[in-house]
């Protein structure tokens, strides 16, 4: 039961115990700021690993002496595969030209060849959602089953690494954030516990006058929410400042900007105070516990 009086009571409490509340708010802000940094790192690694699949290609080397019709049928079959984003046929002549271009000054190495040693090939670009170790394995086994394909070249190690990095980042990010989150809740818990304890005489009187648990809890929940909200607001401000500092540094040192680091999304920065408020309320709920008469 939250009434206007609950708000007034909460604000009185915040004013009366200003220093305790300020410290709680600042330590909450520190925790939330650290979580922001962890999420920033997590978000960037996640974005980086997300961009890698877009560049991921599979090269299929075709068997020698296939007819144009057979090659067309193969290309069509590949286009129909749901995991394939695009198909590019590279005749052996084009492949040789590309190789020469790539070799530049060392192109003389292939100049003297009587015969083009390169096979016809097909370069496949894969849809990002299919670039995972398991899904790629399925695709490769499908491709191997095609009798026009001689050899398949794909970044098996890259795929495995992406999976490992993703999992490691996810797990460590969630683990670390959870630990700090619990710390932040504990911080709000102890603060509200102190506030509740300091006002226990009032609370006892309220109980004797017939106050419901909701009436007793409401001001403390509001206090927890306000402390958490202000902590979140400070953390959000610090995270925004950090981003500005990063922007400033990256203009001075372009090498840093070249990594293409992403800032935290605006919705996250705006949501941080509300997240703080929620954590404050959880801390308050745990601190008050069950009201016994």
């Amino acid at each position, binding site marked *: 039961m939250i009434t206007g009086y609950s708000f007034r009571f909460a604000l009185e409490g915040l004013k*009366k115990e200003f220093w305790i509340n300020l410290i709680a708010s600042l330590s909450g802000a520190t925790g939330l700021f650290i979580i922001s940094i962890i999420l920033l790192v997590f978000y960037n690694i996640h974005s980086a690993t997300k961009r890698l699949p877009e560049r991921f290609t599979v090269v299929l080397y075709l068997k020698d002496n296939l007819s144009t019709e057979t090659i067309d049928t193969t290309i069509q079959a590949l286009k129909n595969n749901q995991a394939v984003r695009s198909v590019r046929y590279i005749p052996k002549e084009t492949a040789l030209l590309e190789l020469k271009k790539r070799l530049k000054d060392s192109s003389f190495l292939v100049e003297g060849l009587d015969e083009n040693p390169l096979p016809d090939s097909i370069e496949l670009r894969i849809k990002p959602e299919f670039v995972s170790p398991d899904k790629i394995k399925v695709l490769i086994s499908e491709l191997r089953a095609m009798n026009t394909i001689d050899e398949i070249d794909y970044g098996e190690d890259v795929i495995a690494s992406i999976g490992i990095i993703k999992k490691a980042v996810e797990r460590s990010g969630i683990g670390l954030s959870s630990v700090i989150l619990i710390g932040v809740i504990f911080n709000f818990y102890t603060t509200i516990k102190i506030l509740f304890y300091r006002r226990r005489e009032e609370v006892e009187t309220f109980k*004797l006058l017939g106050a419901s648990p909701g009436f007793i809890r409401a001001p403390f929940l509001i206090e927890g929410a306000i402390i958490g909200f202000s902590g979140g607001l400070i953390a959000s401000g610090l995270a925004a400042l950090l981003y500005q500092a990063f922007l400033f540094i990256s203009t001075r040192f372009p090498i840093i900007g070249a990594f293409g680091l992403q800032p935290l999304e605006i919705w996250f920065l705006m949501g941080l105070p509300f997240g703080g408020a929620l954590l404050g309320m959880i801390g308050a709920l745990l601190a008050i516990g069950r009201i016994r008469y």
Partner: protein
Amino acid sequence: MIHFEGVSKIYDNQLAIKEVTLSIEKGELVFITGPSGAGKTTLLKLIYAQERPDKGRIVVGNFDLSKIRQKRIPELRRQIGIVFQDFRLIDTKTAFENVAMPLRIRGLSDSELRDLVYEAFRLVNLRHKMDAYPPTLSGGEQQRVAIARAIVAEPQILLADEPTGNLDPENTKAIMEIFKEINARGTTVVIATHNPDLYTHSGRRVFRLSEGELLGVEVL
């Protein structure tokens, strides 16, 4: 309205209330008397469920306190006004806010409760002290604030634990008049006191307690 059937209460292996059986009817004004430690305060605490009986049955209005669940206790207490022996006023709130508290607990807004609080202060003749904080009030004034808080929500039952303990004879008489007026409006009033001046020639029932035992009931 209030029924005790063979009620006992034990504190630290000592019987504070022994097999008490009594009935107080709706609209009555009664006194509970006895020397200090007789069990008067414990008996009142049992009525508003601050203490639970170890034996026996207590019924207050529609509530059977032997079976009452925790979540229904606030509902019971909202039907009872209590004048505590130690007043239990909140020092950090003005007299007005203290008196308004039972109404806020019932969910009344500022505008809804204002007139009711003024009326309670008028009844205890303390309107000029509404904005004062309890520590700045005399014992008698604090007692009257406590009474105003107990009556402001027009409870069905009013319990008063030594309500004139800090008052001079003149104020004692005035407070008793207030209780009579509240009782005349239909509220059941139970006054615990060791002051015989309050109940002598009152024409009301007096329950006499000694060492937790109900010695008898008489009309004085």
